[in-house]
């Protein structure tokens, strides 16, 4: 009897049209839990570094989290894992909604795609009945439109659909996989498009079992209340945008506009929001409503994610109304609302600089807003210069050339970062930007506060209520004075904790917004102290805090190894040059050294054999050594290996 997980994966070969239901090894759950963890294992085992992202051998894996479809609230995040054509590295994105739990009730933990379909298809899963069905009639259709059409075509309003839009079909690097009010936005949609897979539609009516029913129920009921009381994402609910408009940079991650926000604006933007707002909605079995249905006059309604509210507006120096209009278009096309606005702003900068001309952009409008709409249509069709821009800032800059590289100033490992430009170097953030495997800071940061509370008494109160934090972090926090940096040792621990929570969330499928991301506000309902209960009651695993922490470390290290195998080295681990005004090279170097040491990696950022064995990743060590990436005297890194690595 398997608890929490179904014990089956669905293996789909799109080239041959093969469909297999494969039983999984229970031991993997103990080692990697599920979700991202077990997906990483699979990518390691089955996708050697030679495999190009756009090739039949690349895998696209949709994983439910370990706690999906158990009564544990807010376990909704499915994880999509593959190799990205943009970074050439491991790529990982998450989406909530209803899709993951539905997959589990259909009887599967994962869907693993390999190969490429000769023509556009979609996958229809109804419990044991699985079909690959023609999708030529859906070509070019919007992502939400597709969902609606499929529900009708399949005569089943309860079907849950994840689909790509035109952007995905055309392998745009910023393309997303959209599902209802959530999307896997960061660097996976283009692979789904490359496999000619338009959508996955699921209906499941099977039971999912848990090991310790009564105990689990008891803590879940309390958890519902706790999550509700700690409240939803303020980004959807609050009308005060001071923080975003002041702190984040406008345009192409260029300018900060302190004091931009005022009461009049708040009134004005609020009335705009009220005019298009339909209702708040939430994800499966989650009591908070971080999302909203938006309905623009004369257009199909769409559902926005907490974060997408201002990214286009700020990139285009426009207002919230523009943002709503932009989202209506980009969500149907299936575009990431973090990187897309930056690519658009980047293109506008190139035009201003004369690097892109009217020849490249015939009939390019004057107004920045109209320019965005213009560019989006070019990009999703890979039309003209849109073809270059569709590959993201890093590659576009190089394809366009003649000085465009200068304007690629906000990417890390070829990937667009959130538009932040700050003053003093921040130790933990430096490490997170430099070393994060997830590329996206919001998926790395979160448990430890970004700033200390100035008043010591208040800080004391804060840590007294801080049930999420292991003791040492309370100490670090108490010692941390405003306008100072935590000690290097503290910084390393902080990063480790932040990461650890995300790696747990992503393997059990819990939303970071009730866990890893909320710790800094003292509002995480799931944390290292109660997670073991939820996991062991649900799965029957005998797991405690230390074992859980170690599991997270295992997953994190495995993913690091996957990237090392694809050439990632220390030299790649740097935040955007201008992220902080003042940089301190020697401290930065020290931070990296300490962090690697703490992680059990060598100075080039490659896990040592010792560490790998300790984490029962011996097979990884063997492979890395066989490939000469690790040497027997595992201290030093393999010069050849890093030399090999060329752009």
């Amino acid at each position, binding site marked *: 009897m398997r608890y929490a997980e179904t014990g089956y994966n669905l293996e789909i070969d799109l080239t041959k*049209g093969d469909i297999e239901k494969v039983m999984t090894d229970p031991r993997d759950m103990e080692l990697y839990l599920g979700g991202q963890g077990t997906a990483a294992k699979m990518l390691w085992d089955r996708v050697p570094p030679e495999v190009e992202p756009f090739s039949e051998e690349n895998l696209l894996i949709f994983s439910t989290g370990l706690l999906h479809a158990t009564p544990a609230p807010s376990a909704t995040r499915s994880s999509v894992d593959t190799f990205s054509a943009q970074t050439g590295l491991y790529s990982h994105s998450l989406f909530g909604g209803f899709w993951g739990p539905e997959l589990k009730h259909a009887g599967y933990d994962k869907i693993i795609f390999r190969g490429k379909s000769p023509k556009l*298809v979609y996958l229809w899963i109804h419990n044991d*009945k699985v*079909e*690959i*069905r*023609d999708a030529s009639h859906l070509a070019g259709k919007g992502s939400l439109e597709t969902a609606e059409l499929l529900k009708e075509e399949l*005569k089943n309003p309860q079907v849950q659909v994840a689909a790509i839009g035109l952007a995905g079909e055309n392998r745009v690097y910023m393309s997303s996989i959209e599902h209802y009010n959530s999307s896997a936005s960061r660097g996976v949609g283009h692979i789904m498009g490359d496999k000619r897979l338009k959508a996955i539609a699921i209906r499941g009516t099977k039971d999912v079992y848990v090991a310790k029913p009564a105990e689990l129920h008891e803590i879940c009921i309390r958890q519902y209340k706790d999550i509700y009381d700690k409240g939803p994402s303020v980004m959807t609910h609050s009308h005060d945008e001071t923080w975003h408009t002041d702190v984040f940079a406008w345009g192409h991650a260029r300018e900060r506009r302190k004091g931009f926000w005022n009461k009049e604006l708040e009134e004005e933007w609020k009335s705009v929001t009220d005019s298009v707002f339909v209702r708040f909605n939430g994800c499966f079995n989650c009591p908070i409503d971080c999302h909203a249905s938006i309905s623009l006059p004369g257009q199909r309604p769409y559902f926005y994610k907490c974060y997408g509210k201002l990214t286009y507006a700020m990139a285009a120096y426009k207002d919230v109304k523009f943002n709503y209009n932009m989202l209506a278009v980009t969500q149907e096309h299936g575009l990431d609302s973090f990187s897309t606005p930056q690519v658009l702003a980047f293109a506008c900068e190139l035009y201003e600089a004369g690097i892109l001309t009217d020849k490249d952009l015939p009939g390019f409008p004057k107004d920045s807003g109209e320019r965005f709409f213009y560019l989006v249509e070019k990009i999703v069709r890979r039309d003209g210069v849109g073809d270059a821009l569709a590959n993201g800032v890093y590659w576009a800059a190089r394809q366009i050339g003649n000085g465009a590289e200068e304007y690629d100033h906000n990417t890390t490992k070829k990937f667009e970062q959130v538009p932040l430009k700050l003053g003093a170097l921040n130790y933990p953030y430096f490490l997170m930007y430099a070393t994060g495997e997830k590329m996206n800071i919001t998926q790395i940061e979160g448990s430890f506060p970004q700033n200390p509370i100035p008043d010591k008494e208040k800080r004391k109160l804060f840590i007294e209520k801080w049930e999420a934090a292991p003791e040492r972090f309370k100490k670090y926090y108490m010692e941390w004075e405003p306008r100072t940096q935590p000690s290097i040792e503290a910084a390393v621990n902080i990063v480790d904790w932040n990461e650890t929570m995300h790696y747990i969330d992503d393997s059990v499928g819990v939303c970071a917004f009730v866990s890893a991301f909320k710790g800094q506000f003292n509002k995480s309902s799931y944390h290292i102290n109660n997670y073991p209960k939820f996991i062991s009651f649900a799965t029957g695993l005998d797991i405690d805090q230390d074992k859980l922490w170690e599991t997270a470390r295992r997953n994190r290290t495995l993913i690091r190894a996957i990237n090392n195998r694809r050439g990632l080295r220390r030299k790649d681990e740097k935040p955007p040059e201008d992220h902080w005004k003042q940089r301190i090279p020697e401290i930065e170097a020290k931070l990296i050294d300490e962090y690697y040491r703490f992680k059990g990696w060598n100075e080039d950022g490659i896990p040592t054999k010792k560490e790998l064995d300790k984490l029962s990743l011996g097979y990884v060590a063997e492979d890395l050594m066989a490939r000469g990436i690790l040497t027997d005297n595992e201290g030093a890194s393999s010069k050849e290996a890093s030399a090999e690595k060329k752009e």
Partner: protein
Amino acid sequence: MVEQEIKNKDKPIKKVIKVDVDKCNGCRACEAICSAFHAEPKYSSTNPEKSKIRVLFDPIKDIYIPVHAGEYTEAECNGKNVYTIGGKQYNECAFCRAPCPSRDLFKDPDSGLPLKCDMCLDEPPQDEPLCVKWCLSDALTYEEVEDEEEKGEAKDEMETGLDSLINKHGLAMVMDSLAQMQEEKS
């Protein structure tokens, strides 16, 4: 590629009465004509209480809902239906079409037998139910929907009636008193 694999249940084109409560003007012509059509002999008498469609209305709350009778249910369900939609609270089991013990709707005032809408397909069948025909404000419209379902035995009025009697009084009693009635007659 694999279309033929779609589960293919019989798909009768079914006609349904669509109800637009926003358009209802509360005139109850539907009740009048329904009771007349189902009278014996046809149209010989009118009595909204015998109508198989009823307008639930509460003018002060601006609630006007034409509901056509559905299948008889033996037991009352747990609790009444109370919905709040668009700020208005709908009581009285609004929207529920079942004649059931917990409401006096859709029961023949004389015999107490449950009433059920037959879409006026009773002889002579009408091209559209009369309540729809008489509803000039278009609160009721008769439209086709493609219907996918395994057929359930659609029961005729008499069986529903007998059924309800049996459930209320028990099979034995029904058989006895029927026998008795026969004797009295002969």
